[in-house]
């Protein structure tokens, strides 16, 4: 199979879990304004934002409540209008607990005055566009939440020839990007064109998996270059996508800009366009609420900071006794310990499951399925043993830092070993020890 795959230019490895995209034809519904939001100051890769508000401050929708700290950071904005009732440590979907701004809604919909249509956005300079994107708090909405303005400012010695717009949504169960492409194709295209202009990239290519041909058709009709890719996880991972579309390999430890490309998620294109054309900061996003534990799975437009319990109620409540709440997709999502965690910028989906994975791990029988499916060419079965034995030098030598944590190895592990868990731990230890 590996030979066939490389002949088809795709990446080697990967798995094909059951897609279960039950909300595929759902359309996007707008969730009601929550009574309270919990907006963390750290929602992105990089330094947390620095709070600008205090208890009892009155805020409107789009009021900046946190200023970016340094270059790899973005500001945070209020997503509802009302009163700040406190800045406290609150459950956070990624960090466990983190400083959050709690805003109690006044029931109204008052927007910050500056949020008006910017008809002549096309005349803005590159620098102004990048700045507007940063000020709107835009981050990569595919999940990693890396500040978008950083990706749009490659150093001058790394010219970008191709912008890839990522509409793969290779995670099973999630359909938010798919729906967004169907409903907001026009704005996505405008956003993508804007990115292309900023990066001065000659080519703009949309990458979409072949289970979303309807979306691919829309972009083709607009005269854009669309690559329909095989539905295979992790097709939407940056490095694998570049390999599949351009047959270029991002060097180890490198970034897409090293091979002259930038990848942006469709949701990010949409949000950035809104930010520039309407001065609208990132205060809401589209996500999928699904799983066997929820009565009516939906694609919803949600305000950032909405506690997950509100969304569960909006989607009809639990079907049975919920065992797991997962933020993100089933392959890379993070299991939550509380219903109080808020939705953040990087939350692409919420899965409510009535089943929990039986985590008893067997002995490694060296079946090498993990080696076969690893899209990074790693040997997880060897690395996890080095990590278990705390032999972090060896783990590093075998490429633990190249792991993208996609989960293919653990998905296919016949001994049910939580390989991603070991590799993540190994990565952290390697980083810690090299400091």
């Amino acid at each position, binding site marked *: 199979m590996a030979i066939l795959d490389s002949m088809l230019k795709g990446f080697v490895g990967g798995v094909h879990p059951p897609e279960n995209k039950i909300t595929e034809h759902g359309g996007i519904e707008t969730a009601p304004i929550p009574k309270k939001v919990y907006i963390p100051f750290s929602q992105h890769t990089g330094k947390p934002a620095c709070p600008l508000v205090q208890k009892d401050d009155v805020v409107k929708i789009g009021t900046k409540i946190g200023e970016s700290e340094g270059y790899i950071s973005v500001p945070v904005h209020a997503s509802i209008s009302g009163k700040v009732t406190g800045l406290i440590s609150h459950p956070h979907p990624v960090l466990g607990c983190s400083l959050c701004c709690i805003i109690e809604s006044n029931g109204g919909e008052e927007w910050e005055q500056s949020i008006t249509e910017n008809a002549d956005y096309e005349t803005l300079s590159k620098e102004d566009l990048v700045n507007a994107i940063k000020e709107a708090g835009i981050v990569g909405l595919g999940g990693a939440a890396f500040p978008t303005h950083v990706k749009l400012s490659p150093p001058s010695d790394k010219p970008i020839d191709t912008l890839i717009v990522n509409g793969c949504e290779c995670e099973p169960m999630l359909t938010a990007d798919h729906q967004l492409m169907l409903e907001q194709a026009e704005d996505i295209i405008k956003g993508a064109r804007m990115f292309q202009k900023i990066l001065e990239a000659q080519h703009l290519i949309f990458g979409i998996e072949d289970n979303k041909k309807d979306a691919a058709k829309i972009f083709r009709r607009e005269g854009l270059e669309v690559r329909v890719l095989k539905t295979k996880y992790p097709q939407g991972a940056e490095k694998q996508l570049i390999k599949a579309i351009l047959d270029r390999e991002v060097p180890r430890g490198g970034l897409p800009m090293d091979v002259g490309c930038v990848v942006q998620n469709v949701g990010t294109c949409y949000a950035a366009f809104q930010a520039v054309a309407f001065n609208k900061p990132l205060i809401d996003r589209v996500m999928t609420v699904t799983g066997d534990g929820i009565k009516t799975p939906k694609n919803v437009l949600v305000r950032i900071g909405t506690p997950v319990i509100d969304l569960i109620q909006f989607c009809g409540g639990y079907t049975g006794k919920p065992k797991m709440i997962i933020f993100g997709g089933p392959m890379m999502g993070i299991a939550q310990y509380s219903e109080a965690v808020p939705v953040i910028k990087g939350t692409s989906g919420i899965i409510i*499951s009535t089943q929990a994975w039986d985590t008893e791990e067997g002995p490694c029988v060296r079946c090498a399925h993990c080696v076969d499916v*690893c899209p990074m060419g790693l040997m997880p079965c060897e690395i996890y043993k080095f990590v278990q034995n705390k032999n972090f030098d060896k783990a590093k030598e075998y490429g633990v830092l190249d792991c993208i944590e996609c989960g293919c190895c653990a998905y296919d592990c016949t001994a049910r070993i939580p390989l991603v868990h070991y590799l993540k731990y190994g990565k952290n230890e390697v980083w810690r020890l090299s400091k």
Partner: protein
Amino acid sequence: MNELFVVSASPHVRGKMNIDLAMRLVIIALVPALSYSVFLFGIRVLIITAISIGASVACEALMQKMLGKKITVTDGSAVLTGLLLAFNLPPAVPLWLPAIGSAFAIIFAKQLFGGLGYNFINPALAGRAFLMASWPLFMTKAWLAPANGTLSGIDGITSATPLSLLKNAANYGDPSIIVRQLNDFDTIKNIFFGNIGGCIGETSALLLLIGGLFLIIIRVVDYRIVVGYLVSVAVLVFVLPTKGTLMFHLFSGGLFLGAFFMATDWVTSPVTHKGRWIFGAGCGILTIIIRIWGGYPEGVSYSILLMNVFTPLIDSLTKERVFGELSKKKGVKK
């Protein structure tokens, strides 16, 4: 808020294949060959197999109990070891022999090294090698003629299996005539379908091929080891001075049993892609060397055991190329 949720590491979905299922599928893939063997050699085959499996499972449970481990005989690995050992025994061996072989396989080759996943050689083959060293007469002479043919696959010669006939042709008459008869289409046909004498599970190349292909399709067996093994045997048969033809060497003895079911044992074969090609090829080369120049007519089991020992070395020398690694060939520049 007072609900407790399960928090575990991603991914939160898992594939269908697991160790227990894989073991059962391998056992299922071996059933056609076993059934045919019962037809060829009689109910005795079933008794030997049952004793072998029974002893294997009993020893596994006993060892795990003694070592204070969880008893995991239901995972099917001990059953498979017992079954494969029985497949490697001549059908007329005394009934205590499989029990001793199984005991050695499980106790010394598997459990003392840490149990499933930690043994460095294939337990069933270790058991066979032990029996071969201890009771060579039973292991090389206790043949039975098949119900529908002769031991050698040739009419009139009833005291040797095809491979030993090839090796010691002079003992049975005019060597050139015997070699010609062995490479005759009718004999090859008998060998392919299994209408010859031999170990319990090795006679029918056809049924082993069907079971093996099934395992390759469902990804329990890696095609690289099998292809590497068979291709290297084929190449050497052309290159080296041997009296047997290509078909004769491929279908005779336990080659298919070894290539599809024993060399591909997960635990004792390399995990890297290149390593699996090398491992398969190494098995093939050693098999032919033993068959042509060695002291035994058959070389499959020793070739695999020898390559098992090289597995850690092969793995460490054939690491996978990490995505984005600068290779001389591709010339990826920074």
